């Protein structure tokens, strides 16, 4: 009891001594700020690591954006905002980037953030000894020698990164990469504190050891319970950082998380599938749906292990035409998602959706065409097409699979449902390629169409349906050096609509409940990036 009293007395003292916040430049003049500048948000899955070089999850990246800072951040519309890089030079061959770093950036132990910290971080990401699952990110960025270094064929020192001096960081690419700077907002490209890592090894991300260069530092990290971040006073823009504490709570069950939101224990939570219309009615100022750059699709296996029928483009087209996306979006998901006829999310920066005829056909037209194509391919009532739909255990995937099964039944296809546990599903999808049709989701790594389209090139590790198309490959190769890659992306989508290696189903929306006092959360950022340093809580 004494202890509790002591703690509450301490809390009172802290409350009493709370500083009056200087209005930062993110907060509009005249806003009445709450005394308690905290923000608590929901995580579906626990954070697996807070090491920027080892992270591979979207949630982990979100948290790392608060703790660390790289060359750029994003604004609401996804445009780049200089963070540690104040300016950059690009060589004439478009393969060498020289970044000039700000000189007032500090680690939370007071050391300056230097170009060497970037070189160390990028080298560590590539180093086979680090064994990072995100090492391929450097390969995706086309950093010179990244392939050979990750493969262990060249020493780490051969990686195309250099510190020209303390505040000049140079990256050499092996080919021009139009989206290169877009990729620098992901935490995998952030600097890391060499001294701390060398001293503590695997333990360096513990609250008691970690040193960060972002607006926040790590206060508490209890696996399965909570992660608490505290405002960092050494951050170069600390004067403009209003929220003092950010807490993440992992709650696996979405419904339970919603109850805790309603109890006021969370400021942000995802709305479970199908509940958006009800919550929007009840809480119009809290329930929000915003485009989110991910696509849900059914991938056809056209590789050696796939069924013969799917090697016929007419069958693939018929199956795609047969899916009624409007029903899936309006009756199952009900959260502002959009029917998808392209693999690239419609809201991707600069992307022009090509004219895809079946997108505006009526339901009857699509069905008629689907039946006709199946008949041409030799399938009909006396010789029905039999397929397996593979998905990983989840009630949402199941609902969609059942709907698709019914849609396909109407065009004379007998589909059975194969439901596998996550890891088994991944094995069958990515390693063994043992499936007919598999549900798949893809989220953008950066806000540019190539993040989607590159996954379907014949050399991609993500091309689990083993679809190889020379024309598509050529277009994607051309896009890397073209003055205007966007027209290539549109063309690539057209090829996909003609060849149908997968049936796009819907484009994601981020459907959340957000406390109406939390301001400054981006509402247009399709990557769903957010920066606590730009946010604040208003008074009741």
């Amino acid at each position, binding site marked *: 009891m004494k202890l509790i009293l002591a703690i509450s007395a301490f809390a009172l003292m802290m409350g009493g001594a709370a500083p009056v916040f200087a209005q930062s430049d993110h907060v509009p003049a005249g806003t009445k700020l709450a005394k308690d500048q905290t923000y608590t948000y929901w995580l579906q899955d626990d954070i697996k690591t807070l*090491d920027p070089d080892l992270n591979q999850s979207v949630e982990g990246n979100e948290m790392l954006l608060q703790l660390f800072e790289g060359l750029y951040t994003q604004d609401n519309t996804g445009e780049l905002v200089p963070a540690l890089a104040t300016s950059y030079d690009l060589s004439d061959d478009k393969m060498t980037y020289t970044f000039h770093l700000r000189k007032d950036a500090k680690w939370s132990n007071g050391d300056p953030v230097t170009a060497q910290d970037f070189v160390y971080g990028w080298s560590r990401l590539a180093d086979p000894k680090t064994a990072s699952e995100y090492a391929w990110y450097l390969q995706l960025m086309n950093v010179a020698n990244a392939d050979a270094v990750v493969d262990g064929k060249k020493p780490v020192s051969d990686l195309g990164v250099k510190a020209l001096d303390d505040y000049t960081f140079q990256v050499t690419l092996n080919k021009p990469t139009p989206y290169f700077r877009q990729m620098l907002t992901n935490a995998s490209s952030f600097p890391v504190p060499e001294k701390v890592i060398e001293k503590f090894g*695997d333990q360096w991300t513990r609250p008691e050891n970690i040193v960060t260069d972002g607006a926040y530092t790590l206060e508490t990290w209890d696996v399965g319970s909570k992660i608490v971040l505290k405002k960092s006073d050494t951050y170069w823009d600390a004067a403009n950082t209003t929220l003092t504490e950010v807490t993440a709570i992992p709650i696996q069950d979405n419904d339970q998380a919603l109850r805790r939101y309603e*109890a006021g224990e969370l400021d942000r939570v995802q709305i479970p599938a199908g509940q958006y219309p009800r919550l929007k009615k009840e809480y119009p100022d809290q329930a929000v749906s915003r485009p989110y750059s991910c696509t849900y699709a059914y991938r056809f296996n056209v590789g050696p292990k796939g069924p013969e029928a799917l090697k016929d483009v007419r069958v693939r087209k018929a199956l795609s035409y047969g899916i009624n996306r409007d029903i899936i979006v309006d009756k199952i998901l009900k959260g502002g998602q959009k029917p998808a006829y392209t693999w690239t999310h419609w809201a991707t920066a600069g992307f022009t959706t090509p004219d895809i005829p079946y997108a505006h056909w009526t339901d009857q037209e699509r069905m008629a065409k689907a039946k006709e194509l199946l008949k041409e391919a030799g399938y009909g009532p006396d010789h029905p097409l039999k397929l397996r739909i593979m998905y990983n255990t989840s009630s949402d995937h199941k609902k969609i699979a059942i709907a698709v099964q019914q849609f396909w039944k109407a065009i004379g296809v007998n589909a059975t449902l194969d439901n596998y546990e996550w890891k088994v599903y991944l094995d069958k999808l990515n390693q063994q390629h043992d499936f007919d049709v598999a549900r798949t989701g893809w989220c953008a790594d950066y806000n540019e169409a190539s993040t989607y389209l590159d996954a379907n090139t014949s050399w991609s590790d993500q091309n689990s349906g083993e679809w190889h198309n020379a024309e598509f490959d050529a277009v994607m190769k051309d896009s890397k050096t073209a003055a205007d890659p966007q027209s290539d992306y549109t063309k690539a989508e057209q090829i996909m609509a003609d060849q149908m290696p997968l049936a796009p189903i819907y484009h994601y929306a981020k459907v959340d409940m957000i406390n109406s006092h939390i301001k400054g959360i981006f509402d247009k950022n399709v990557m769903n990036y957010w920066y606590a340093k730009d946010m604040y809580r208003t008074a009741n």
Partner: protein
Amino acid sequence: MIVYILKRLATAIPTLLALVIASYLLMHIAPGSPFSSERGIPPEVLANLNAKYGLDQPLWKQITTYLWNVVAHFDFGPSFVYKDRSVNDIIAQGFPVTLTYGSLSFITAVLVGVTLGVTAAIKRNSWLDYLAVGVSIGAQVLPNFVMAPILVLVFTLTLHWLPGGGWSFSDPRFWILPVIALSTSYMASIARITRSSMLEVLGSNHIRTARAKGLPNRKIIFRHALKPALLPVISYLGPAFVSMITGSVIIDVYFTTGGIGKSFVDSALNRDYAVMMGVTILLGTLTILFNLVVDIVYGWIDPKIRY
């Protein structure tokens, strides 16, 4: 007695060894790897990962290295999924939480369960009996994954008395809902076992003798009936205690307590081999230990049993 305990502890070693080997093999037979993710990983990165975690070694070598590290250094290795944590860390963080709410649940279940059971037996066929039986059957049929959301609905959303989740060692308000949710079904079982065994004992010869001697009812119940009536309860309590203190995934998931139950289930789903082995060994050891404790308590309570 000492010899008996030593003998039992000696047989625990081969049991644990068999447990470790069987779990290790089963785990490796299961399809999927700790490193598979939604994005296909290039083969060279996968090779680096396998090398880092020793999965490129032959299976017998993996098992022997693992056993050596556990026995010689008490080191359960790094987690394959929580990259910044070792298994020792994960257990050290989660087990105290589980142990706290598990022990509290155990005490609650025993106190309430035995009281309900004894009351029901003494006042057989009275309204008290029906009430006690009703309550315990009600508690039994309400599994904790139904209890947990109902408790949150009532105590958090409606009454605003208690937090809907989270954990703090210094604030008991966080303990109450997990303890209620976890203890009810055990409490119900204890009440039922106590009631039926109490009824049996109350009908036995030595109680009739005691009554014939004219002993007061209270003395008969507490002196002569309770001790033998508790024997079946005790044999139930051993495994019940172990399963309570090794955690419940439902409690951890609903109340984000951060206990070990969630780590156990997650490690299996994530194929986090090291965490799974660590928790399995912990569980196995506790089970063996508490079965031994139960047997010792048995000998102490029941004069017919001697070792």
